[in-house]
């Protein structure tokens, strides 16, 4: 697909350990996909494969329609990868650092000068351009690394934990930068451990654990897809205890418990079952005054999909 990142059944083993096991997903242009999973889940490995830094044992990744295994050089020109630990050169200023990588990407003459101006402005590094990079704070370094990643105007951005170590303001700024990039039609894959932050900027997420994808899609759709479970919150005039007792006798209801004045529970039935559940409750004389699906957040999805076992 034009401009997209398509990951097709990639598998990577390190000795006996299968770090990435038949992982597939697609990030479309303009989409920001959050890539979440516990430590050692295989996020970095997957991203390194997408960036041609690691070769998968099987499977393939296409960037803007180009295979990273067959045409790594062409693919690299279309990928911007921001590694989790990036390198700084000693005795080099921000401007020189960016100038070096622009040269490395083969950007020449006036084009290079204007590209440098553009990324420096985009990442608000203008006032720091003559500063030595050894002397930069973590947040400035992350910006610099993002600026470096954007030099060759890649169609696909792969950002490995870009928000790690940033203060709240810098995070908000990073989020705005990423959204702006998606607005330009770039496909963005971004990994992070800070779920609230991903929830605010990502259009879709992929959850990975121990090398396998546990769910992929919009937050709501995977929450529903976990096992057809829906979380519902209900409240009645008759009181929470009576409602809870009544609920526990009904089919498809699980994990009911009192929350504030009402009851929250998991419901495993389909829509028809939900309709009959509502009818039963309404007819039970409990004085039902609230019955609504509870909004799930990314944290719920993450915790229900992963087992919390480290690899």
């Amino acid at each position, binding site marked *: 697909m034009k401009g997209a990142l398509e990951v097709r059944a990639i598998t990577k083993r390190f000795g006996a350990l299968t770090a990435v096991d038949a992982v597939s997903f697609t990030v479309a242009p303009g989409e920001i996909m959050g890539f979440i999973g516990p430590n050692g889940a295989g996020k970095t490995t997957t991203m390194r494969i997408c960036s041609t830094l690691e070769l998968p044992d099987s499977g393939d990744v296409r960037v803007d329609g180009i295979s990273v295994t067959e045409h790594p050089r062409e693919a690299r020109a279309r990928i911007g990868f921001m590694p989790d630990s990036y390198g700084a*050169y000693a005795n080099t200023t921000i401007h020189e650092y960016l100038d070096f990588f622009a*040269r490395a990407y083969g950007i020449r003459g006036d084009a290079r000068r204007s590209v440098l101006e553009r990324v420096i402005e985009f990442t608000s590094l203008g006032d720091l351009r003559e500063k030595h990079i050894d002397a930069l704070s973590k947040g400035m370094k992350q910006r610099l690394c993002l600026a470096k990643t954007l030099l060759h105007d890649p169609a696909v951005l792969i950002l490995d934990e870009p928000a790690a170590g940033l203060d709240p303001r810098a995070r908000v700024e990073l989020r705005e930068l990423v959204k702006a990039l998606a607005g330009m039609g770039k496909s963005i894959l971004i990994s992070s451990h800070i779920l609230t932050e991903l929830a605010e900027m990502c259009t879709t997420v992929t959850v990975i654990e121990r090398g396998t994808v546990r769910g992929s899609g919009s937050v709501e759709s995977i929450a529903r897809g976990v096992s057809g479970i829906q979380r519902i919150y209900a409240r009645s005039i008759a009181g929470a205890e009576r409602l809870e007792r009544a609920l526990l006798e009904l089919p498809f209801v699980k994990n009911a418990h009192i929350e504030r004045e009402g009851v929250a529970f998991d419901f495993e039935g389909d829509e028809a079952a939900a309709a009959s559940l509502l009818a039963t409750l309404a007819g039970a004389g409990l004085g039902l005054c609230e019955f609504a699906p509870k909004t799930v957040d990314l944290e719920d999805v993450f915790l229900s999909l992963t087992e919390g076992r480290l690899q």
Partner: protein
Amino acid sequence: MNAPATTGVRLEDRVNPILVKEVRQALRGKYFRVLFWITLLVGTLIGVGIVSAIDEISFVETGRVFFMAIFGVLSAAVHCFVPFSAFLATSAEWDENTYDLLIISNLRPRQIVQGKLLSALIQALLYYSAFGPFLVFAFLLNGIDLGSVGVILAGSVATSVALTFVGIAASSLATNKVMRVVLMALFGAGLIAAWGMSMGLAAGITFEPQVLSSIEGQVAFVAYLTVAVVVALLAQSIALGRFAHEEENRSTPLRVMSTVLVLFASAWGAWLVQQFGDSESIFACHSGAAALLFFPWLISSTEPEELGRRASAVGPKGTLATLLSAPFLPGGGRAATLCFLQALLAVVTSQIALGFTASRALRLDNSVLAVAALYAYLLAYTVLPAGVAAYFVQRRSARVLLRILMVVAIPVGIVIPAMLSMFFGSGPGSALSHPLNPFSTLYDIQFGAPSPFTYAVLGLALLLALLVNAPRVFAGLREVLRARASRVQQAEDAPRA
């Protein structure tokens, strides 16, 4: 930034980006600045010291002594500091995690290595030009002629380039920090030895300039330059391999180079035999070649066995061509195959060189026997331990350690039996003469007769090397054939898809 002329812009764009970055970093860094001024200061002090002692040294000698003293300081700079800074600049790419960034920036390994080399050479050039006035002064003091100065400087530039390449190659060998510190120590020791050697050679030429007018002296000088070039080329292909991405075929260029080196040694030996009629030349040439081949053999025979996805994807169509190309493809087993073939090639071409050029009967000359023994030792010290280790070593850091141990094994193999025999009472005079010592055995073959025991040990080592490596040699060939079969299969499937 002011706007330079258009040609300037174009030129500036063509410059290797690594070179720009490296020069910037080097000239700004403490390492270069401090050492540069210290070297210059020491040179000046020594120069002034010698000039003020001018009455006590005979007139002709003054120029020579002055030249040697200055050259000694210059040599420390261009033969030690510069290659060492290239080593450090290369390790920085691993230490600072920038290697991945270089790879995804689509920089080619050749650009990376060339950039590092040129930046080191610019530093060397700064040293040479800073010392230029001193050398001119030495010439004005009399006692040293321009020819000698030219030869010494040419040799010194060649040495500096070769050592810089070796520095880049050595530091590219280990991505692990601890291993690199070990390599750094070894390389540093080597540089100090090289410094001593270059001073010795320069002193030889300075104090006896007539050696350069003899044909032997000239051949020796050309031989020296040749060795420097070959060392530089070998080190370059090692470094290029290391800087290529892990999944690329990093091994083939080095293997082709080492094969060319074997042929080159025989060809040069043949020419020398024809010129001087001395069959020992062929052995001398192969001694040099074998000393250099040690490193490519060591590195390639300890490679992981897998062919790799990218190397599997390309190759010849025919079965025979596939088998012939196999020894040149990555993998330790295939490297072992190539080492055996190169040893055979060396012996056969040496015999041919003697047989044809010196118009001798085709009988095994002592020199050819010595060449055979030479390569048998090389196999015994590289392919044999590599074959044994192939059964155990899997991890990358273990592989680097293995390579270091194999280098250390040679002095150990020579010294330990000698110490044992001294301990158990045979006289110290003969202690170093034992079958594990290639030097004593090769000397014996040339000028005496080694004991049957020596031949037995050498034969046994060769047999063991063959046996130990046989499984991976066959596995390596099978893997290449399988890769070819799947390529052919894919090509058949492709039009249908």
